[in-house]
């Protein structure tokens, strides 16, 4: 009888433990659950397109300010408000002709953090 009690108790314990661990993993396997970070990236890293996306995983609405430079000159400065767990694609329109070999830099700021992207065309 004791053998059956031990086996049944172990099965119950393991089911409880597995359920807890499975739920913990599933919840934490999210870009947003109990996390605070942001990411910015070029939509297409391999061509000359400057479309970029900012993803907000800060856990709250966030207002990002971004500046775009051609070489050392700032050509665009703007803000993007993004809801928690949302992302926003930005397609900058740069006036004038950009010469071959120019370095385009995008600096995105949120609070103290800075996310930098750049491409040499």
């Amino acid at each position, binding site marked *: 009888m004791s*053998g*059956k009690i031990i*086996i049944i108790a172990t099965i119950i*314990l393991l089911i409880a433990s597995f359920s807890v*661990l*499975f739920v*913990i993993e*599933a919840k934490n396997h999210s870009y947003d659950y109990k996390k605070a970070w942001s990411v910015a990236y070029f939509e297409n890293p391999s061509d000359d397109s400057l479309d970029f996306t900012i993803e907000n995983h800060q856990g709250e609405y966030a207002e990002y300010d971004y500046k775009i430079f051609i070489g050392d000159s700032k050509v665009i400065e703007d803000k993007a408000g993004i809801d928690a767990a949302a992302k926003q694609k930005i397609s900058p329109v740069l006036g004038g002709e950009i010469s071959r070999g120019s370095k385009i830099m995008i600096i995105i700021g949120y609070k103290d953090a800075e996310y930098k992207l750049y*491409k040499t065309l």
Partner: protein
Amino acid sequence: MTIDLLKLLLALPFALILPGFFFLLAIFGGKSGKISFFERAVIIIPLSIIIIDLIAILMDKIRVPLEGVMLIGSIAIFCLVCFIVYQFRFGKRGAQAKDRSENSENSNDSEKIFDFSYWQTVVILISIFLAVFIRTTYLADTIVPSATDLGHHMFWVQKIIQTGHLPVYGMPDFIIGEHIIFAVISLISGVKIMTALPALVLFLANIVGIFTLAILAGRLFKNKNITALCFFTSGVLYAINAPQGKYVSGGVVGNIIGNMLLPLALYFLLRALKEKNSLFAGLFIFSLTGILYTHHLSAFILIFSVAAIFLAYLLANIRRIVAVLLEWVKIFSRPFPIAVIMFSLFYLLFIFTPSYFNPEAVSQATGQPIKATRFGLDFEQIEINSGSARLILGGLGFFLLLIGFERRKYRYSFALGWAFILFLMSWQPGWLYINIPSTRVGNYLFLPLSVLAAYGMGRYFDLLKKSTTKFFSAVLLYTILFFVITYGLSDSADAFKIKNQFQESLETFHSAEYLAKTADTSRDIILKDHVNLYGDSWYKLFFMKDYKYPLSRGVLSRYADQTKPRETCTRDMIMIPETESGKKCFSETGVNFVVLNTQLEGNSFEKYQDFSKVYGSNYVSIFKKNDP
């Protein structure tokens, strides 16, 4: 999430209980005096894992795709065949004859060995509760897939799932039994691999390993106190240290499954020899086959352990050596063990030969040690490896067994021979021509030491009862217990302190997802930094191109291998990308994406003119080499 959990909770017993249950039914019948309910409940899980391996290997050989429905059907067919065998052997007329012959000799004997008293049951239940609780607490902070070894293994598991066939590894590092069970459970349940599934399967194997060790101890000593204490010494002491909780979360698959199968194989061998029973002899061969398909090191350890046990028994019985040998030959030359031997050989040679079955791999593991890490462990390292409390109690058990040595009883040669050979393999591997990292061998010492520690504690309790100076004995006992609990649980206390790194892992996965979406894997070559990126070994699962894709900068010490020259490009392209050698590496390898930790190399990489930064998060930066 809930549906996935339910599917997993249904798939686990289907894959890990049914095959073993029906297999034992075919061998022992429904109720047998040879095997108690407790033992049967423990044994069916490791046996199921072996059976699942063999079923999947056979399916692959006859070109049946490894898909959910096919696997369910194959397992069901196996169970049906076993049931037919059971009906044939034990149904109606057969049952009466078999039951009479089998149950008459030792009916109720098996049940009695594992029929625990109230207090023994309490000790076992508390030990199991602590074992599960401590591991669960530890795993709660490591459960999101991120461990390096687990990532490597899960690539191959994903390959099986994706292709429906067993992979061709092309290297001896991986063995098929390390991957089939995960793939089968994932395919049956539909739960993805990048979830808690792999860690939970390993966790289950780890807990079942405690039980297999306990039933071995139960059969060895036939003392229920010792069996109950074995749950404490193997499950509670050093529950987190390698090779326990840390190996579960770290994904050291072969070791965890090996630690479950090793005591099982010895349990079958013990019963075969002790009871002169050919059924157990066959099951020993069957579990040895399972280990050969699962983990080379565990198989190596088992072969040495069995040799040491045989040798110890033969030396102790040198006067009747011929009679003993003849007796063993008789046990193993009956139809069932011979059939299992033939079946195993046929499988190993013609159905599927493990990747390490080749002279090169064997010669790498044998001979005089060539690296400092293989020269053996000193006593301090052995103490750290096994845990001081377990080592001292195990030493006490060893001593008590030695002074009470009875040459005709198998328990002495089993426990002493097993512990002695593993100690020797860890301490002086050169004496045995073993050329394997000594810490990896040392990790197996906890198995015999846990059994011996339980024996030491159990015998000490017995001596205490008989002692005339009870006061001093009790003081000594409580001092030992205090020491055992404080030292033996010290690593478990750390389980409550660790900080999870889920955010880092998820940022790594996000960057992998980005590259999987934007890079052209037929043209783009990615290099990532294993040294400073958490969870990076899972990167390859996002591409499923090749085991070595993306390229990876490894731990720096690996580049300075004195025994053979190593490539250094993966290191140089991150550390010195602008030098001549760095540039040459880029042109030779074609690497055009570099994934780095934002705060470390990511910062310094920003000054290099040849790269664009295309992705930036708090933790990961991706650079793309500018087209020339």
